[in-house]
């Protein structure tokens, strides 16, 4: 069944100089030059609105607009709902989507407001006063003892040291390109934070950034070997992912080419389908075994992170993880991104990270085991304000991936699963991969994080807080707006005005 295209290419011919940049830059082959008529033409049905052509057009002769040609939709059956039914009726297949849940479900970050000091508790000016944004992730001792000479007697668990409470979350080499990984690795290294390999293994070129790398062990165990485990600064066991709780990752064979297949240790062209569960984990006790296997394999030098999707009884799950020997829990909310996920799962499974985070922090405190673990919050952390709110809700640090992709050029066209990313990020096509120059990509990531760090300091200063550690779990600094009693109760915050 043919539909009118979702997007329209609007070309202002009076500005078009026929340079054909749009044509050369569109991997979807939307644009072409007609020699006879000496005009640029386009096939809008192929357009994904990635804005590559718009961005590169030197005369601003192009824009892409959402088509207003709609099916006869109603409040129950939207244009998209109807089209999805048509498409499934045609193909019999599961619908695939990319990036995070786009539906208008509540974004609690936007319903939470931050406090500022006035009169009695003066704010701090970060331009004039020192501000500490460094955080350490890992199990904290309940008490410490010192030797006679004052040196520390307590043996500390391994810690990750972050110059600011933000890290780049897991995106596998395979789902994203070599140059995207290079950009992340170089930026993390320059910033003194961490990036995460995802479950695609670690390309040999990036072992040099190991000090700033978190290596992931997921249910498919792709790319996992002794050197890999030892290369990173921490090991993350991926139990679940916010965008697709309950299922494993899936890299189509078309992306498992060349170094990707080598790094994953799978045959070239084969689909890399991670099982939904870890086949050796059916209980907290099983998880504990894997945690300690990994610690044993790396001589207890590295902290182990357990990453789970935010799901209904996340607090109980986290409590179990905190008792499993893991050093850090990463919770991934339902709005988190993905390179490819079944649409129904992405859009309907999991819960908002804000609620999950608050519930987990509270539960661990109540049980007196909060210091057993650090908490990382991920799943659509979009700004420095989101970071500050997350810390105040109880997170030790945040994971960002979508924002990092945007910094590298992603225009959120949500077509990662096609493998034809025009921005050189979610693709393995060499001609597209080279569009992301890591010199530029890493610099833009560094810029973004620098900007966030400044903003975090500004917000902290306003609250009269000069150390990010003092903000953690400080829910008095937050107020809700337009939230129900129940929501406020879960978030553990008062309503604005209270």
């Amino acid at each position, binding site marked *: 069944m043919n539909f009118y295209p979702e997007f329209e290419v609007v070309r202002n011919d009076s500005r078009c100089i026929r*340079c054909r*940049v749009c044509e*050369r*830059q569109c991997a979807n082959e939307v644009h072409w030059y007609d020699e006879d008529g000496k005009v640029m033409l386009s096939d809008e049905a192929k357009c994904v609105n990635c804005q590559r052509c718009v961005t590169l057009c030197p005369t601003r*002769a192009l824009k892409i607009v959402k088509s207003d040609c709609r099916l006869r939709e109603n409040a129950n059956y939207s244009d998209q709902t109807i089209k999805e039914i048509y498409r499934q009726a045609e193909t019999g297949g599961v619908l695939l989507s990319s990036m995070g849940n786009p539906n208008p479900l509540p974004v609690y970050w936007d319903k939470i407001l931050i406090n500022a000091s006035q009169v009695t508790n003066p704010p701090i000016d970060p331009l004039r006063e020192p501000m500490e944004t460094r955080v350490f992730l890992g199990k904290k001792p309940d008490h410490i003892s010192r030797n006679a000479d004052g040196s520390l007697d307590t043996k500390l668990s391994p810690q990750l040291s972050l110059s600011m409470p933000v890290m780049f979350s897991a995106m596998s080499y395979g789902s994203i390109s070599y140059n995207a990984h290079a950009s992340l690795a170089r930026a993390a290294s320059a910033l003194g934070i961490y990036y995460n390999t995802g479950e695609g293994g670690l390309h040999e070129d990036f072992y040099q950034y190991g000090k700033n790398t978190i290596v992931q062990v997921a249910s498919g165990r792709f790319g996992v070997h002794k050197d890999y485990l030892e290369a990173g600064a921490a090991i993350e066991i991926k139990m679940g992912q916010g965008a697709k709780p309950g299922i494993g990752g899936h890299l189509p064979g078309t992306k498992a080419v060349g170094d990707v297949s080598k790094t994953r240790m799978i045959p070239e062209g084969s689909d890399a389908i991670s099982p939904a569960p870890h086949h050796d984990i059916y209980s907290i006790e099983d998880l504990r075994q894997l945690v300690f296997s990994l610690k044993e394999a790396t001589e207890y030098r590295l902290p182990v992170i357990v990453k789970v999707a935010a799901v209904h009884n996340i607090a109980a799950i986290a409590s179990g993880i905190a008792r499993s020997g893991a050093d850090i829990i990463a919770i991934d909310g339902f709005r988190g991104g993905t390179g490819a996920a079944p649409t129904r799962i992405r859009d309907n499974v999991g819960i908002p990270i804000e609620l999950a985070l608050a519930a987990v922090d509270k539960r661990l405190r109540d049980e007196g085991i909060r210091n057993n673990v650090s908490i990382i919050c991920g799943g659509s952390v979009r700004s420095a304000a989101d970071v500050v709110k997350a810390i105040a809700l109880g997170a030790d640090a945040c994971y960002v991936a979508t924002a990092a992709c945007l910094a590298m050029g992603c225009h959120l066209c949500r077509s990662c699963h096609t493998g034809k990313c025009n921005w050189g990020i979610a693709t393995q096509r060499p001609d597209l991969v080279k*569009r992301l*120059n890591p010199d530029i990509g890493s610099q833009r990531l560094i810029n973004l994080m620098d900007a966030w760090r400044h903003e975090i300091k500004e917000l902290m200063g306003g609250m009269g807080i000069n150390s990010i550690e003092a903000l953690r779990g400080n829910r008095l600094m937050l107020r809700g707006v337009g939230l129900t009693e129940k929501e406020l109760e879960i978030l553990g915050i008062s309503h604005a005005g209270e």
Partner: protein
Amino acid sequence: MKRIYVKEEWCLGCHLCEYNCAFANSGMTDMVKALRGKTIYPRIQVEQDENGVTYAVSCRHCKDPLCVKSCIAGALSKKDGVIEIDHDKCVGCLTCVLVCPYGAVVEDGSGVAQKCELCMQNACGTPACVKGCPNGAIVYEERGEAE
């Protein structure tokens, strides 16, 4: 001295450098007005090899400039390392095109020769090709001098 160098690993073959060059040297302030409906004669040329690798070629400002030595009008000269054409003196014989081993001197569409002068004769500042390259594939930097 600073020269223009290409990093072919980052060249996308988009040809924007050619258009930015033509615009920068058009003397006009609007790219549409400068280039629309016209054939461009850029001073930088994007090439593609048999493996699909693309890169841009412009004047190397070489140590032994055959164009300067060969100019029959005394219009080409090397000043502070930069090879320039005195357009007032150039009569368009195109001997420079015949001798430049890199194909970096080209005809300007009106019959006279032109070449990259590092945007020092226009209002561009940083060479337009460098400034406009979307992927950092053309750089303007110091890499020493030829032996």
